[in-house]
């Protein structure tokens, strides 16, 4: 009926854009990861020793653990918290006001968020220490104390990311039919039980999308950390994305940075692939 060209022509521009601007550079980056290269002189082929060095590096391990912390925290607070708030916010009197307030931080860019929270966490002029001093609590180094600075950054991250998950979950909640909820209410289930046993299973299609997006984003987070702490002090807030940037563009170990970025991409790909495969195979959803 339709010729082959006609069938594919409409998706060609999008495909070509993505292939030429994203895939070709990525493949070239994989090639660089087998070389020792400072960005200027001739690359020297060194096989897989970049990867071996990365695995044996102490700072890689610590930033890997930080990345895992970011992912877990993201799934707990911005995603699950967003779901909880979306569930309880529905049908409230000022639903739209709450929704707007909670969504506003997402419209602020990461860089501006970083600046705002640097001001809040500041030691002497910061807002948070100002509030604490009202209660006679001594000053806390929110960003330089290595036991709490990751949590400080994660709070800023939650502040920004909660809104978008909330809005997506509200969209999902709107599609849930009323009948199962009503019949559970008649049988005497309270709001919390309905949430656990009916809402969460029925939200699965949108949850797959939200969780995958949030997970991928939390693996990739860079701007916020870089603006607020630059991975410091002493690499204590570095995630893999920051380590990779530092190696490639500050230390000019291009090959080493490429190796880290490939390890990170492989982790993201594997996790999101298995998660999506497991979730999609049991559902008949259109994504």
């Amino acid at each position: 009926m339709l010729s082959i060209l006609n069938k594919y022509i409409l998706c060609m521009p999008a495909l070509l854009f993505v292939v030429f601007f994203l895939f070709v550079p990525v493949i070239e980056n994989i090639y660089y990861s087998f070389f020792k290269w400072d960005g200027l002189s001739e690359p020297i082929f060194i096989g897989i020793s970049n990867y071996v060095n990365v695995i044996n590096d102490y700072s890689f391990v610590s930033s890997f653990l930080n990345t895992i912390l970011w992912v877990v925290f993201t799934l707990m607070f911005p995603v699950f918290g967003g779901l909880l708030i979306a569930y309880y916010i529905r049908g409230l009197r000022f639903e739209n006001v709450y929704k707007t307030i909670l969504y506003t931080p997402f419209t602020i860019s990461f860089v501006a968020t970083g600046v705002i929270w640097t001001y809040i966490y500041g030691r002497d002029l910061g807002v948070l220490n100002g509030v604490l001093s009202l209660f006679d609590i001594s000053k806390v180094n929110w960003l330089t104390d290595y036991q709490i600075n990751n949590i400080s950054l994660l709070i800023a991250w939650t502040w920004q990311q909660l809104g978008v998950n909330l809005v997506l979950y509200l969209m999902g909640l709107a599609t849930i039919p009323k009948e199962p909820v009503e019949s559970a209410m008649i049988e005497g289930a309270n709001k919390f039980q309905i949430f656990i046993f009916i809402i969460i299973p029925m939200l699965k299609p949108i949850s797959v999308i939200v969780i995958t997006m949030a997970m991928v984003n939390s693996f990739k987070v860079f701007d916020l950390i870089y603006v607020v702490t630059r991975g410091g002090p002493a690499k204590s807030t570095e995630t893999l994305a920051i380590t990779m940037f530092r190696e490639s563009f500050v230390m000019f170990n291009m090959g080493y940075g490429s190796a880290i970025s490939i390890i990170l991409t492989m982790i993201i790909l594997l996790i999101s692939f298995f998660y999506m495969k497991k979730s999609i195979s049991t559902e008949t959803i259109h994504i």
Partner: protein
Amino acid sequence: MGKINFPKVLIFLISLLWLAPLVTTLLVAFKTRKEYLNQQFYELPSTIAFFENLIDSLESYKIHLHIGNSLFYAITAGAMSIIFGAMAGYNLSRIKPKYSLHIFFIIYLGTVFPFQMYLIPLFKYYDLLNLYDTKLGMVLIYTALCIPFSLFVFRGYYNTIPKEIEEAAKLDGCGIYKIFYYIFVPISWAPIAIVALFQMTLYGMIFYLD
């Protein structure tokens, strides 16, 4: 009567917390440098120094130029990614050629890579093609970065549209392009708004490519 609704109070408190950083930052914008250094954060500024601060930032940082640039990128690249995303979404959800799911996953894979993956080679290519430090180069890479999400939204939306409309148009003699132009484009205001909103907020974020 008299029973406190716990979640309601909690949500109220949370939204107050969410507002606090914005309010304190807004207060600083109205303060002079001296006041910022000497006052507590909750004290209101004695004089409104907002316009002096604004003029200061206009003069020393030329933010009006940067806002113009951001708008330019957002509009051109946003429009391009919406058009290409809608075309591809229609193609992959309606015409469904062979391997359409694979093509979708290949394009959507574009969201997975961290930006350092493509930064160095891209820089090299841009230097080779004289695109480095030009607006055209920026628009092209922004478009490429936004297409996956745009396709995702449009494909999901077009999947929900009933087949009957399309079949009726086919009986009346429309080809695939006419169906796309006369049926799918006029009803896509919702996904266009979603993509435009999300991407506008994204452009401000991508500072490292400048």
